[in-house]
């Protein structure tokens, strides 16, 4: 986050990137305002970086909802709620299926004028953090409850007689239409809530970060992170629940029932048939609400698998935990030790300061430690829980269309934009009301196949890390914090083609040095291929990959900063991690021996 040198090199312009064969016409799959070529033309010159941390794979048309709502709502807090002095929102576009971002600064002459209002607003939040956060939990719960209450079912053959008697004068189609609109609005509402505390959490962290860098020049980023990171976090609860279930299964002697966790019904039936099985099943059921609203993805994709609906996933993890317990391994996170370690680190740094500096250190760390845990915990509430319910409801709606012959598979709805879904609902209810065929069954199957071809073609090409000429210096705090996109990182990306291909550098996200066999994973579905003691090399990792971290020796990611989920979880598990390498998954091959130095942020390919 320092030094500046004029960039001599550039990333490609969006207009220069080749369209993969078969992807021609891809622009029509996305909202018009998200495509570069429909803008003013300035977009082809501006610097953009690819957010492959949140959107590592190509968007299907419906899935742009997550990108649109999330990045829009991030912007509103910077620009309209808090008036963050130097930073407005982050502009976003979709190019060749991937999301590119461009932070929007505030003109320097306007920055001082924003300060008083920023301090008034941020100050109010920091002063009332706990009560406002309590209120936040209530708002989010209400949103989730309302989402859960939405119901999408096929229209009946005739309006019920009771409705005739009551003089209701509605045919029930309005339930589908209003329900869909409400579904979208509730998702939007959740994303507004998502950012209510997030930017402030980052700010408090960055403030402490800046202070530490000033009084302890060169202090490792990890040390600062460890001093404010939560230990007993809701984000770790789902994984902790599985560990407890594994311990309970072992205590009750149920381990033989876990022979084939992919057979969920059979496994649960076998458990029910054993002594103590009932006790375990009660615990299993109790853990599901809410902790199985947990995705193996990141909540942004319609085909993300959630534990609740794919119980073979948590059952498989339980089986793995049972095996490790039987081998005498300690699987519970050593919470007491982590708390003690955090205390030791804080106390040691405190001991180097005195007087006013010590007072500042305590005040800033206190604020960051209060505000920062939200940055981690919100993820369970929004990305996992809310979005889990949201996608489940989308599938429920899709089932209505499948039954009406609009398309064949419930996942096909993702090939429509969300506004096209609205049109399709009217098509469906209109045909039903008139008593004729809807157009959808004649239009959508072929159109969906055409679109699938385009999406598959787009997916055959990885995104560019960035587009156009980077600024001489990257200063926008959220870009640096959340994405790990710093001046050095950008220069690194640009330098890649001239450096030795066997060394990859990134952020020193979690300390330690190990060598081992690489396993490249580009989607959650490949997770099962990860073997004991391998090194996970992933585009990103999701917090729900928690159980896999018990198996691996280190993690390397393409994207992600010091506070990315991979970094947090690796520090938690004591595994070395190098994040934000930009190219680990495209450079390293599964099976290669690599050396990961999480203290230096360096990965070396040792050989095949």
């Amino acid at each position, binding site marked *: *986050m*320092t030094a500046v040198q004029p960039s001599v090199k550039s990333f490609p312009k969006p207009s220069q990137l080749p369209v993969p064969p078969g992807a021609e016409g891809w622009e029509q799959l996305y909202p018009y305002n998200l495509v570069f070529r429909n803008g003013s033309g300035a977009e082809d010159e501006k610097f953009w970086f690819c957010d492959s941390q949140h959107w590592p794979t190509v968007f299907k048309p419906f899935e742009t909802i997550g990108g649109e709502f999330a990045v829009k709502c991030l912007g509103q807090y910077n620009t309209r709620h808090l008036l*963050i*002095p*130097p*930073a407005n929102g982050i502009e976003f576009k979709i190019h060749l299926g991937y999301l590119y971002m461009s932070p929007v600064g505030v003109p320097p002459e306007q*920055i*001082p004028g924003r*300060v008083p209002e*920023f*301090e008034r607003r*941020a*100050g109010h939040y*920091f*002063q009332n953090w706990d009560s406002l956060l309590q209120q936040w939990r209530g708002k989010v719960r209400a949103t989730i409850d309302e989402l859960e209450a939405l119901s999408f079912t096929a229209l009946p053959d005739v309006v019920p007689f009771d409705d005739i008697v009551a003089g209701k004068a509605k045919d029930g189609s309005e339930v589908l239409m209003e329900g869909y609109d409400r579904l979208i609005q509730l998702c939007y509402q959740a994303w507004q809530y998502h950012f209510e505390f997030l930017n402030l959490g980052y*700010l*408090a962290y*960055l*403030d402490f970060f*800046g*202070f530490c860098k*000033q*009084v*302890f*020049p*060169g*202090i*490792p980023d*990890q*040390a600062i992170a460890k001093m404010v990171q939560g230990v007993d976090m809701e984000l770790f609860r789902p994984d902790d629940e599985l560990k407890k279930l594994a311990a309970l299964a072992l205590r009750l002697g149920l381990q033989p029932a876990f022979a084939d966790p992919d057979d969920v019904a059979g496994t649960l039936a076998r458990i029910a048939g054993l002594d103590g099985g009932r006790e375990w099943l009660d615990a299993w059921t109790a853990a599901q609400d809410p902790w199985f609203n947990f995705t193996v993805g990141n909540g942004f994709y319609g085909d993300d698998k959630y534990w609740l609906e794919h119980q073979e996933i948590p059952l498989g993890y339980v089986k793995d935990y049972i095996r490790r317990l039987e081998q005498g391994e300690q699987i519970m996170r050593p919470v007491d030790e982590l708390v003690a370690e955090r205390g030791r*680190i804080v106390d*040691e*740094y405190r001991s*180097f300061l005195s*007087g*006013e*500096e010590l*007072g*500042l250190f305590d*005040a*800033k760390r206190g*604020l960051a430690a209060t505000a920062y845990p939200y940055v981690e915990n919100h993820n369970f509430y929004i990305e996992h829980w809310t979005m889990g319910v949201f996608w489940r409801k989308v599938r429920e709606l899709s089932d209505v269309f499948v039954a009406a012959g609009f398309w064949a598979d419930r996942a096909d709805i993702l090939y429509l934009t969300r506004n096209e879904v609205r049109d399709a609902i009217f098509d469906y209810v209109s045909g039903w009301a008139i008593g004729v065929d809807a157009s959808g069954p004649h239009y959508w199957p072929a159109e969906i196949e055409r679109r699938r071809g385009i999406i598959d073609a787009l997916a055959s090409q990885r995104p560019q890390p960035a587009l156009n000429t980077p600024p001489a*210096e990257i*200063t926008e*705090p959220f870009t640096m914090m959340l994405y790990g996109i710093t001046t050095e990182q950008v220069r690194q990306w640009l330098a890649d083609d001239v450096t030795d291909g066997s060394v990859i550098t990134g952020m020193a996200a979690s*300390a330690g*040095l190990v060598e081992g066999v690489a396993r490249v994973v580009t989607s959650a579905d490949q997770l099962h291929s990860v073997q004991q003691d391998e090194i996970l090399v992933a585009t990103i990792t999701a917090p729900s990959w928690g159980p896999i971290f018990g198996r691996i020796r280190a993690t390397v990611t393409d994207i992600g900063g010091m506070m990315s989920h991979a970094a947090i979880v690796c520090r938690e598990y004591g595994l070395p991690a190098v994040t934000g390498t930009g190219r680990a998954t495209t450079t390293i091959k599964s099976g290669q021996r690599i050396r990961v130095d999480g*203290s*230096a942020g360096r990965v070396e390919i040792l050989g095949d």
Partner: protein
Amino acid sequence: MIRFFDDGTEPDHALLGGKAASLVAMTAAGMPVPPGFAVTTAVYDEAVGGLDLRADLARLDPGDLTAADAACARIRRRIRALEVPAAQRILDAYDALQERCGADVPVAVRSSATAEDLPDASFAGQQDTYLWVRGGDAVLEHVRRCWASLYTCRAVLYRHKHGIADEGLSMAVAVQAMVDARVAGVAITMDPATGDRSKITIDASYGLGEQVVSGRVTPDNIVLDKVLLCVVAETIGDKHAELVADGGRIVERAVDDGRRRRRCLTDDELAAVARLAKRAEKHYGCPQDVEWAMAGSDLYLLQARPETVHSGAPRTQAAPVRAGIDLSGITSMLTTRR
């Protein structure tokens, strides 16, 4: 007359001199100090007791350096011709040390002056440490040389200038098993460049640490975070030469290009040195400047003394803390272009 570092003796400056007292204290604190013993000031006192140096000293003219030099040399010759009292006990201690080390181990013979005898500690450390001494007779000879070093011309003139009387002048001598150092150097429990106490600064080079201490090589300079013990900054030094044992003596040998270019300590070794320095700092309760050496994978503490040059300097103070939630730091972070 003889005190082993680990025989429970008090770290008494008057009896042991500064260096040996420090070695005794560090040994008592459980730090990995190479074993050895002190030939106490009592031995010196007895040896020099019959020697009247007053006439020689009285004739000494500080204004005439050539003459002063000659006078001091005469005094040193007289001291070096002395019989060492209790010589047999020193030889027995030497044998006991050999036996304890389980091998024919060379020793370092170091003067251990009482407080104001010599101009400064670093002067003492450089001028009268004899490395790789073998055999009882050689030890006795180097004990006398250490004694004699009280009368180097520089030391005598220093005392003269500062009005320090020669009466009561004494010296102990430390005889210590040599560490056949693969890598050695110094560590300071702060960053002397900034006064930042959250860092440990290590200078390291190949071979015996004397090269680093005396500034005859450019060592690797590494700054570690004191809490996480990871490298924060490093400058690889040229390390063109190393002092190593060869055929029973110490020789200076050129270091080949490959070794010169590479850092001479691994991350784990650096962390071990840092932990050792941290222990010394904790034991003494103030920033330390330690000398360390690694033989094989064993790390030894050779010396620890307070870091006095930088740790007293005031640090720049940050802005005062405001009551309640203070956003000024966040605001200035956001409004200051880095």
